[in-house]
């Protein structure tokens, strides 16, 4: 498509998107956090605090102009560690969804389009897996396989694909009888083409919105896991771990728990608002 057309389309999307102020906030928050996280070593005041670092002269400092979020029990800057802590969250979200989404989408497409025993097999499998509560499963897997980050992420992905398979399967079933699919069939298009070039693009908006929402969900889960001490090895910062550790020093050194918890909250809100905005713009029924 020509540049002018793309620009026009983007400005139309922006018009719709900007109707809801929360969506804009969500977009800004998400983008800001992602940028901060990627460039954390350059953008945080005390990047070295993210590793093994101690400064016993500065322990338990309340929020100040030197340490916006205060310092923790070994003197590390909580603001810096919170930003680095986002890394854990985003890596979790990225990896889990990076595996689960393609896997789930393909299985959903295949089961929806071919039907028959393949459809039954895949859908029953998703039924079984969906009956398991994600957090409990993640804890169980972590406990069994050891708190190795990689294993935890793969285990979560193995559960997560089912949502996408379900979602896409439903959409494929409703779209496969549309006339443009019939037209492609009459022309003799290959099944691959019909699934991936005709049907999938129509599912893409819903998949995108769900992925955004799920990112928030996975981040919440990862915070829960790290809170329980699973999946993360100290001194790597993770927001959940920071909340857990800081909780021991309540109510006096409140900044050690409150700020990491707020950091999680802000990211989740941002993603949810962004997802709402995307849903409005892309006109999705979710």
């Amino acid at each position: 498509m020509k540049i002018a057309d793309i620009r026009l389309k983007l400005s139309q999307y922006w018009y719709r998107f900007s109707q809801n102020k929360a969506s804009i906030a969500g977009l800004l928050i998400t983008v800001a956090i992602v940028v901060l996280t990627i460039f954390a070593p350059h953008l945080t005041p005390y990047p070295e605090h993210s590793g093994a670092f101690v400064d016993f002269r500065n322990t338990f400092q309340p929020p100040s102009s030197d340490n916006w979020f205060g310092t923790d029990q070994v003197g590390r800057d909580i603001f810096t560690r919170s930003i680095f802590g986002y890394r854990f969250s985003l890596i979790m979200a990225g990896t889990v969804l990076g595996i689960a989404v393609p896997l789930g989408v393909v299985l959903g497409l295949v089961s929806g389009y071919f039907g028959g025993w393949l459809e039954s097999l895949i859908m029953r499998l998703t039924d079984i897996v969906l009956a398991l509560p994600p957090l409990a499963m993640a804890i169980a897997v972590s406990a069994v396989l050891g708190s190795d980050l990689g294993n935890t992420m793969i285990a979560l992905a193995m559960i997560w694909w089912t949502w996408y398979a379900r979602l896409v399967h439903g959409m494929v079933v409703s779209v496969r009888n549309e006339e443009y699919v019939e037209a492609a069939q009459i022309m003799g298009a290959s099944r691959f083409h019909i699934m991936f070039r005709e049907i999938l693009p129509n599912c893409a908006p819903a998949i995108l919105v769900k992925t955004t929402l799920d990112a928030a969900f996975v981040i919440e889960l990862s915070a829960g896991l790290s809170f329980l001490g699973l999946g993360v090895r100290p001194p790597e910062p993770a927001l959940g771990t920071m909340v857990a550790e800081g909780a021991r020093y309540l109510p006096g050194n409140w900044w050690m728990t409150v700020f990491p918890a707020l950091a999680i909250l802000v990211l989740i809100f941002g993603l949810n608002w962004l997802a709402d905005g995307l849903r409005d713009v892309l006109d999705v029924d979710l």
Partner: protein
Amino acid sequence: MNSGEVLTVDNLVKYFPIKGGFLRGSGGQVRAVDGVSFSVQPCQVFGLVGESGSGKSTIGRLLVGLYQPTSGSITYQGKMQMVFQNPGSSLNPRRTVGKTLELPLRLHHRGLTRKQCRQRVAELLAQVELDAEYANKLPRSLSGGQKQRVAIARALASDPKFIVLDEPTSALDVSVQAKIIKLILELKDQLNLSYLLISHDLSLMRNVADVTAVMYLGKIVEIAPTAELFANPAHPYTQVLLASIPVVSVEEEALKPTKRLVEGEIPSPLQIPQGCSFHTRCPEAMELCARVAPEDSEIKPGHRVACHLHGRKGER
């Protein structure tokens, strides 16, 4: 099959099985198409008219291979394509016009370079009176008439000899319908095409189809050259259909059979009446009609009716 004909349909039957669900009973079948035979000549427009449940759309889909016949045969030369009713849903909303047209091109002419493809797309668009720049547009920025033109271009892309037009203008405004019909007829002459025109609009049929067949609940009840059908409708259902058309002038009013409202509604295709399937609503039903299904009889050359009022002898 005669050497002249483009398409011959012989005793075509399509039954759809009913799965269990909330339809109790033995299951059974929907007799969508129940023994239909006709043939289409080169460069001819063959019209199939009927209301819901008549089976006309099913025949269209059988011809292009979307459904397989339960029995009977379809014999044709060359390629068959289809143009659908609803321009809103017959084009993939997420693909540009260009990509939509490229699909059939790539499938039928292997080894086309991108440049050749683009050129051919532009040629197709020109044939349907659209500028080449439409190739970059998405369906949602097109009007109903423009979308339908794209659908026609898509059908032409694979060089067919025969096109099934399923209610091609029903979803369009009346002023646009006229232009699309004109385009379709011009293309027929330019490219030597034959058409199967499926519609519920009798006025349209009269002006476009060379031969018209009237369908009711899966069977052809009357078939004749169009002018003859409208001048001398023999089957009571044809007469009722003609009488129900709302017309726009007093002159046309005079040309319709006298107004008669038929009783009740079209029976569900799940419960087709015994004997003549129209007898439950026919204003001239006889006792025989409830027991015995009428056979085709030719009352004039090329004019066939399936009705007991026009028995073997061809006399009322």
